Structures are given as structure tokens and as C-alpha cells.
């Protein structure tokens, strides 16, 4: 199959956004329209006059992708083109969890037939790794740096999938770049479900998280295997599928290979912080029933 997402984009070597976009388009096929908010994906794929997109694509602003998608969907309906052409948003965590929240809430409440794919790399990478509502507890970013009296970001990740579930979305799933086939299946399921649907993709960023470019998939896999990123599907408010972990790995294995958590292994009191993170993972195991 011809790639609908073309080479020549300016994403970093090992870029998570490129992988997420590629997998999303593998799921969506040619007959779709993509809306992207401002962010790495937008900048790296559309430096005028070039575009990496093989499907119709539109960028407007940072905080309004869901509203723009609402308008695209409404236009397709009005013009009688909505039966075959699907409308998707592919946006980062900042534009989804933080600044775009209002327009997402509106679009999901109104029930537009759109699929929203959040490529969550847990900080504002395009502007230089600033903290977002998606940044995990104790991660060091350029606006939540670790320092003599700080272990980094003091708050846990905002639970965006739960917020979308609360809007009555008929299909909400979490996915991971470590499991592309699982992700592609979920994006397809989201597209095939009528109404506003949501797939939240855990997307390790080599540049922002500080790991070797070859380890994007490995880090994503460790997030799942340590229970830091549970994979599940919620249909009409009910948990319908949970990807089980064979053997839960300690969170140190996930944290140790990332620069953003390095301070936990060098600072006094870091052990206690790692225990708190282990507790977050263990709570995930209990909440989602992650172990066989």
C-alpha cells in the first residue's frame, strides 16, 4: 500500500508523532479528512509549500482542532458527503489535554461523528519540552525542572480518557506505539463507531524524554509492561477490553532509561519518589485488572 504519510517530513530521527500519524492513516485509509492543531506534527509535516500528507489535511490553531473538525463534519453532512468520508483529529497532549479542552468538550457533547487521536508525548515538545497536563508525576521538564528542592512535575497526569468517557463517547481506547497493530485496530474501531470517539496514544519522545532514538518503541513497551500506561477499551461507558501484562516489571526499568527521570536516581530522597511512582503503577494494576 502506498504510504498516505510521506517521507521527507522534518520529524526527529525516531519521532513518535511520525509513527502515530503513519499508524492512524493505515487505519483510516484514503477517504478521510485530518484536522491537526498546532504542534510538532503540524510543523514537521507542513513547511510551506510542502506537505507530508496524502489525505486532505487542515491546520487552523492550537486550541480549536475539535471545533474545526466539527465544522468539517457538519459541512460534509450538509453537502451529502458524510457517509464515506471520515473526519479525524490528530493532536498532541498540549492541544488536547490543556488548551483544546473546551473545544473538545463541546465537540464530544454535541456528538459529531469524529475520531480524535491524541498523540501524548507528555509535554510541549514543539516549544522545547515544557510541562503539560499530560506530564507525569516527577518528570523534569523545562518548566517543571528538578532542582535542589524539586523532584520535577508535582502533579500526576490528567486522566483525559476518563474525561472523554464522562462525555458519553461510545468508544474510548488507550493505545501505545509499542503495539502498532493494536493501535491500528483501535483507531479503525473508533472510526467505525458512529459519534465522537477517542484514542489516546502513549508516544515516547526521544528528544523530550531523553532516550536514544532507537528506543521509542522500547520505552513505550516498558510503559505498558510496568503498568505505567494501561491499554484498554471503553465502549458506551463500559470497560470491554484490557490488555493483560504477563509479568509486571518494576517502574525503575521504565524510569532509568529516560533523562527526564534521571534525578530520581541521583537525588537524595529519589528512592521515596520512585516508590510513589511504583504506587501509581500498582494502582493501575488494581484499577484496570492488568495482571492475568
Amino acid at each position, binding site marked *: 500500500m502506498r504510504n498516505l504519510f510521506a517521507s521527507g517530513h522534518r520529524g526527529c530521527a525516531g519521532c513518535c508523532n511520525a509513527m502515530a500519524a503513519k499508524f492512524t492513516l493505515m487505519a483510516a485509509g484514503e477517504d478521510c479528512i485530518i484536522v491537526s492543531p498546532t504542534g510538532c506534527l503540524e510543523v514537521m509535516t507542513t513547511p510551506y509549500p510542502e506537505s507530508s500528507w496524502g489525505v486532505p489535511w487542515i491546520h487552523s490553531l492550537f486550541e480549536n482542532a475539535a471545533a474545526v473538525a466539527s*465544522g*468539517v463534519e457538519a459541512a460534509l453532512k450538509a453537502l451529502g458527503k458524510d457517509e464515506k468520508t471520515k473526519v479525524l483529529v490528530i493532536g498532541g497532549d498540549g492541544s488536547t489535554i490543556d488548551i483544546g479542552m473546551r473545544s473538545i468538550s463541546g465537540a464530544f457533547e454535541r456528538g459529531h461523528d469524529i475520531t480524535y487521536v491524541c498523540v501524548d508525548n507528555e509535554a510541549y515538545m514543539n516549544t522545547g519540552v515544557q510541562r503539560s497536563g499530560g506530564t507525569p508525576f516527577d518528570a523534569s521538564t523545562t518548566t517543571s525542572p528538578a532542582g535542589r528542592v524539586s523532584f520535577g512535575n508535582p502533579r500526576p497526569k490528567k486522566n483525559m480518557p476518563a474525561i472523554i468517557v464522562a462525555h458519553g463517547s461510545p468508544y474510548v481506547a488507550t493505545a501505545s506505539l509499542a503495539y502498532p497493530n493494536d493501535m491500528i485496530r483501535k483507531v479503525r474501531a473508533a472510526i467505525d463507531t458512529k459519534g465522537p470517539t477517542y484514542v489516546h496514544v502513549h508516544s515516547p519522545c526521544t528528544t523530550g524524554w531523553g532516550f536514544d532514538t532507537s528506543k521509542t518503541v522500547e520505552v513505550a513497551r516498558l510503559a505498558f509492561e510496568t503498568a505505567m500506561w494501561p491499554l484498554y477499551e471503553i465502549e458506551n461507558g463500559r470497560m470491554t477490553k484490557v490488555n493483560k501484562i504477563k509479568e509486571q516489571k518494576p517502574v525503575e526499568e521504565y524510569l532509568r532509561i529516560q533523562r527526564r527521570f534521571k534525578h530520581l536516581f541521583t537525588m537524595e530522597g529519589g528512592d521515596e519518589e520512585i516508590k510513589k511512582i511504583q504506587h501509581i503503577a500498582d494502582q493501575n494494576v488494581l484499577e484496570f485488572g492488568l495482571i492475568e
Partner: protein
Amino acid sequence: MISTRKIAKEKMKVVEGSYAVAHAVKVCRPNVISAYPITPQTHIVEDLSQFMADGEIPNCEYINVESEFSAISALVGASAAGARTYSATTSQGLELMHEVLFNVSGMRLPMVMTVANRAVSAPINIWNDQQDSISQRDTGWIQMHAEDPQEAADMVAQSYRISEDRDVLLPVMPCMDAFVLSHVYEPLVLLEQDLVEEYLPPFEPEFVLDPKNPRTFGAFADPSIYTEFRYLQAKAMDKALLKIEEAANEFNEVFGRYYGGLIDEYEKEDAEIVIVAMGSIIGTVKDVIDKLRSKGEKVGLLKVRSFRPFPIEAIRKNLKDAKVIVALDKNISMGLNEGALCTEIKACLYNTDINAPVIGFMIGHGGRDVPPSTINYIIDQARNVMSLGITVESQFTDVKEEMI
């Protein structure tokens, strides 16, 4: 050409200004309408929602968005997907849209959004002035000001013509004064469906979001190309000058009503004092001029219909024989402490042979009534300038000194 109206009494109905506008939108056959309530534009979108509920607008989706920011954002997507789009807003809602306004014009997306001009907070105030749209003058929207409800309604159809013209492709903001025009009941002609179809061709954009021809919209431009984008937008504004005139002329041919194109004038022939104004105050000024003319006083009016693009050449030509020029502004640029129209008129006369003094009066802030006595006072001041020269270049009117 000066404004003319064929009065077709048998066709007239007494309706609210907002209804006339909503009806005009309906017969222009929009495909996507977005709406968010804010006084005093609400009646327009309420009337449109009733048309929808009664099945009177075919092939149209009406979106009740969660904010003005999304109202205009939804239309970005809809317009790019090939839909004819409409929304209406005012004041805080328009200010909330600010970022998106630049985006719409920069992406060269046709769109029509009525603004029911209202004051801005703080203090919060829901009544009429024009601070809201004037504050958006650099966003790249075409801004037109209507004098009365009939013109506000007719301006909707003209706006689509202008906006969708391939030489223009810029969004249009037809402005009508809050309450004074939006909530007033007047006898007027509702736009006829068959005549609108004759006047307004279907919206067939060259580039749309289409899987069969999968183009990219909204790419970023680096320093090597951004200047050219701005240049092209400015050129489109230049081209709009002619298109606004054409839209008005052809509207006159089809409907028999003409309000001026870029500008209009009243009793201008030998006028020594010329009042320059926009919007509903025009009616009051005309009444005052009628009385003064009956006493033989040489007072006339220049109505600015298009504030953006600003019709520099037309205004220069129109004002070349004036002795004193008076700009009326329902807005103020704080710190410069004069209204936008005053500033623009001065700027466009500078570097010309026209040496008439220009003075400005800021009137009607936050819905303060502007009675004929205020206009008379202003004209008295202009007379003084004619004999004594300028003493105060720009000033408020009707300030309650005892409260300051």
C-alpha cells in the same frame, strides 16, 4: 452615484432588524451555521434556528457551539470543506474570536459573520457602540457598516458576493449597531429567494478538503515566504474595493436598492462642513442636516460604508472641497484618545492637497443616546473651527462633568 431606494410598499413587512438579517441569511442558502448566544445578536441565531426547526433551510447544519471561539473555528473547517458559512456575534464574543479572525483571513476562507456592534467590558455593558469591531480592524476581515435594518439585511447577500469572489476570498463582517438596528421594528422588504439566486452564484471554491484531491490547508510559512502571504492578502483587500462597488451596483440592478458602495453621501454638493460617520447615527445626522439646510447652512455627510478596506481614494475625492471635516466615532483608541475614523480620515488626507481641518468627536459610548442636539453642538464646534481654527482636535461629547 448616491443611494436610492425603490419603495415597494406592497412588499414591505414590519419585522425586527435581527429577523430581516436572519431571513437574508436563510435565502442565501448557507450550509453551516454556528451559533453561540450573546446579547444583542441572539435574535439573529434564534430566528435561524427556528427556520431550521421548520425545515426552511435545506442542506444546512446548525451547530450550537460551546463558545464564540468554537463558533468561528467550526466555520474554518466548514468553509475549507466547501460549505457556505454564517455566524453572528458581538462585543466579548468577537473579542474572544480575535485569534481565529486572523486565521480565517490568512487562510483566505470566504465567510460572513454579522456583528451587532456593542461596547466592550469593563465595565460590562450590553449596549451599542462600535469598539468591538473597530478593535478587530487589522484582522484582515472586510468590515462594512449598515445604516438601517434594510441595509443590514441586504448587506448579507452583498457580503457573500464579495467574500466568495475568487479575486477576494476574504471573510466579511457586516456590522449593524446593537439594539438601534438589531432590535428595532421597521417596515422593510425581506430578500426574495428568486432574486437572491439571480444575484448570488452558488459557492464553488477552487480548493476544498477533498479525499479525491487531497490538499493541505494551513501550512506554516517561514521568513522566506511569509511576506508574500501578507502581500497577497493586502492585494486581495485592494481588489475588494472594486468588488464592493460591483456588489452594490448589481444589487441595485436586481433589487432596486443602493446604499452606496464603499461610501455614500448626503447633501454634499456645496457642503463646507462635512460630517463623516458610520452606522445608525447616519439617520440622526441626516435629520439634522435637513433642518440646517432649510436654513441655508452648507452642511453635508460622508457615510463610510466600507471601513476595511478603507476607501482612501473615494474619500479623498469626496472631501476635496470640504472646509471643515468632522469625524464621528463610537469608539476610542486609548492613549491616542481619538476614534478610529478620525485617525483614518486624517491619515488618508495627509500627503494630499486637501488642507481642511479634521476634528473628531467620540459619541454614544456604551449605548449613550446621541440626540440631534449633540449633532447640532458638534456642528457648532465645526463652525468655530472654520473661523478660528482647531482648538481641540478630538473630544468626548456629553460627558457628565459633575460625575468626574
